[in-house]
């Protein structure tokens, strides 16, 4: 197990280096630079700005400097963001995005898994049809539409909740619901499908024929095994949620990290783009590792020693 983890972490470093390299090449290939605007800056000004941010150096040197910076824990300076270090921008936004993401993740699983299991156990019943309806609706409605609809009902019509912003528990409610909608729908669908499949497995029939209590069959044999695909998608799902959503953070004016990457691309703010990609790649890789370790706990067939 330990060797497995170490090996994976070494791979992770290589993956991050490759991701940095590809992103660096791509963002410099894209037409338009940070100083291209509708109202053009004077050539002398562009020259001074390039010098200030080291963009006057050859590309290989810029990449080298960046990698060396990352090794020392410096993700560079943002030039569309008041010269703040990208690390400090990430650290300031991360707690907010993570709060939203983790709450949404928990809410999604708390709704999706029980709903999926119930639907499977009572296939073709009212619960099942409700589950299908729930999943279809929330998997297909875009976040910004759901968000605006919630705002119209709870802020504009009922005046119960503030539309947007950050700081009070009330301000969490609508963004968390919007973020949780899609993963809850996905969880419900996948739990239902995998539970149905597991219910037809030989080992379930064996367990029943051994005369085990139905509850024990359901919990120990059906539920546990049906969770494997759910855990598989939970990793990327959680990564997705805690790295933040551009649309939801933009809509609800959440000062998180979800907007940074997209803003970075629009502004050609190279440090912000690199920082965003690195952060995203790192989170995905770590959570995939966690998922792999979790398999060992859930799936009796998987061992890493």
């Amino acid at each position: 197990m330990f060797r497995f983890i170490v090996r994976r972490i070494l791979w992770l470093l290589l993956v991050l280096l490759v991701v940095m390299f590809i992103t660096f090449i791509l963002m410099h290939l894209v037409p338009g630079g940070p100083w291209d605007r509708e109202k053009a800056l004077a050539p002398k000004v562009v020259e001074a700005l390039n010098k200030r941010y080291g963009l006057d150096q050859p590309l290989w040197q810029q990449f080298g400097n960046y990698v060396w910076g990352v090794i020392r824990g410096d993700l560079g300076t943002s030039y569309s963001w008041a010269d703040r270090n990208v690390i400090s921008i990430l650290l300031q936004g991360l707690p907010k995005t993570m709060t939203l993401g983790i709450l949404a993740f928990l809410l999604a699983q708390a709704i999706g898994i029980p709903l999926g299991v119930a639907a499977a156990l009572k296939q073709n019943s009212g619960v099942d049809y409700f589950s299908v309806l729930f999943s279809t609706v929330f998997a297909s409605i875009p976040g910004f539409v759901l968000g605006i609809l919630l705002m119209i009902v709870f802020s504009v019509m009922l005046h119960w909740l503030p539309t947007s912003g950050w700081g009070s528990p009330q301000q969490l409610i609508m963004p968390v619901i919007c973020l949780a909608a899609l993963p809850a729908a996905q969880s419900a669908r996948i739990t239902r499908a995998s539970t149905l499949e597991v219910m037809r497995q030989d080992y379930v029939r064996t367990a029943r024929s051994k005369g085990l209590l139905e509850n024990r069959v359901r919990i120990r044999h059906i539920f546990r095994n049906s969770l494997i695909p759910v855990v598989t998608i939970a990793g990327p799902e959680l990564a997705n949620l805690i790295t933040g959503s551009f649309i939801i953070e933009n809509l609800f004016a959440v000062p998180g990290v979800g907007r940074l990457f997209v803003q970075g691309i629009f502004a050609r703010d190279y440090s912000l783009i690199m920082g965003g990609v690195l952060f995203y790649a790192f989170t995905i890789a770590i959570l995939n590792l966690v998922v792999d370790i979790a398999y060992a706990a859930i799936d009796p067939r998987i061992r890493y020693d």
Partner: protein
Amino acid sequence: MKKSTIFFSLLSVLVTLSLLLTGACKGSGTTTGGTTPTGEQVITLNLGGEVNTIDPNRASWSNERSVMMQVFDGLLAFDSGLNLVPMVAKAIPTVANKGISADGLTYTITLKSNATWSDGTKVTAGDFAFSIKRLFDPKLAAEYASFYFDIVGGEAYYGSADKTAAEQTALKDAIGVRAINDTTLEIKLIDPLPTFTQLLALWPVYPVRQDMITAHGDAWAQPDASGAMPYYIGNGPFVLQQWVQQDHFTFVPNTKYWGDKPTLTKITFKELTDANVALAAYKNNELDQSGVPGGTEKATMADSALSPEIVRYAQLTTYGLQFNVTKPPFDNKALRQAFSCAVDRLAYIDLVRGGVGKPTTSWIPPGMPGYDATLGQAYTFNPTQAKAYLAEAGYANGVGLPVIKFQYANTGSNPTLAAFLQEQIKTNLGVDLTLEAMESKSFSALVNAKEFSWAFYGWGADYPDPDNWLPQIFGTGAGNNKTGYSNPNFDALAASGLKELDNTKRLKIWADAQALVIADAPMVFLFNRETFVLKKPWVKGQITTGMDGQIAGDMFLRDVYIQK
């Protein structure tokens, strides 16, 4: 891909409409006429997004101006009619009051002796001299520094990044700005620049505190971890109490303010980026003023609850469709004129801009010296005339024309504009227009490299004078000349107009220069933008100008009060 775009556009329209239709809450209904402030004197406005920097020497965007205008007062300022008025300066420098030397090269400005910073210390000529010299600091890379390159030594110091520290110090000391004493500032120019007084009213030369900048570097204009701004000391009517990044700004009155004290006790600028959300927040009374989502202006005007809250006024902004005159087919003047006559500007404003905006056939907008309503009449919408120009260009009935492309940034109402143009050109000229949508920065890069053929372009006033509107955009090789327009007669007029000290003669020169440009039709001059916002009935005393920053009325928040 295409389908989903349409689907999402439809959805967003639906959402916006439903937002409009859900009745706005009833206003207080008690408008008691008087001018006495009543109730809590607080206001919440929407800045629309995060700023990059609020360091006056470095800032360049309109939302940054909105913040700095509350905290700083410059030597001069604009009044509600956009006329210059003295602020920290005792008087507007003129040749008559010896503020400007007879040759127009030396400015001697006397400061009011009672102006103070928000910590109570005196604002001195030295503070202004420090600020102007810092504007040219090569390490700072200030974006508006180029506006001030007429100051002796400014450009040389700005471009000295590769020089040694000693050489840089020498260049800095050579800049033609000095404090003769605490209340007398002297500025020397290379060339006479009659609009230099206007530049003295802009943010890049607001005074800044040397002690704070020396002690704290760039952090002087940044919040600490709690959002407080301990080093951001200004000399204006408000103090920036808090800046929680990506969330909000809070201003409170400057208790040491030396001018007329403001009535508001607290101003909050929120940073809502989504127009639908801002409108919802307005309806939920979280905002006292908000814009409306683009395209919903007509529905807003038709809404009986919202229409009394509409505030509309003209901005000093002109939009046009610029041609690349350096390449075929638009190097052909008659063809440009044909296109100019073929676009129905009224229909554009009605169909694409929600009925908001004023059609124009010339460049300098109304509300500014140099505006001439009679200019460009030849380009009034007229399909018959358009076809005649097309034939004159050698392409009768469009025969022989190469593929005509229109490039645009795929944001806001631009896709609708593009579709509108395609239809207009087809109907009125019988010519097919190929549309090329692009991402914003790629579009800017394409235009700046003059690789476009026909593109949307807008210009807003930095200061209300023709010399901000003509030489930079139509002078041969000028920085913002994207069309590639080059006319020696125009260049000669511009060269003399920039230096002419007699104002009557000067304005005449610019009028002639503008007439030359309009006749050559390097753009289809399209429309002047209007601001269109909703304001709660209890917000009183608002003064709007054509040069407001990101927030309507932000130049005069010091005059606003609440009557609840």
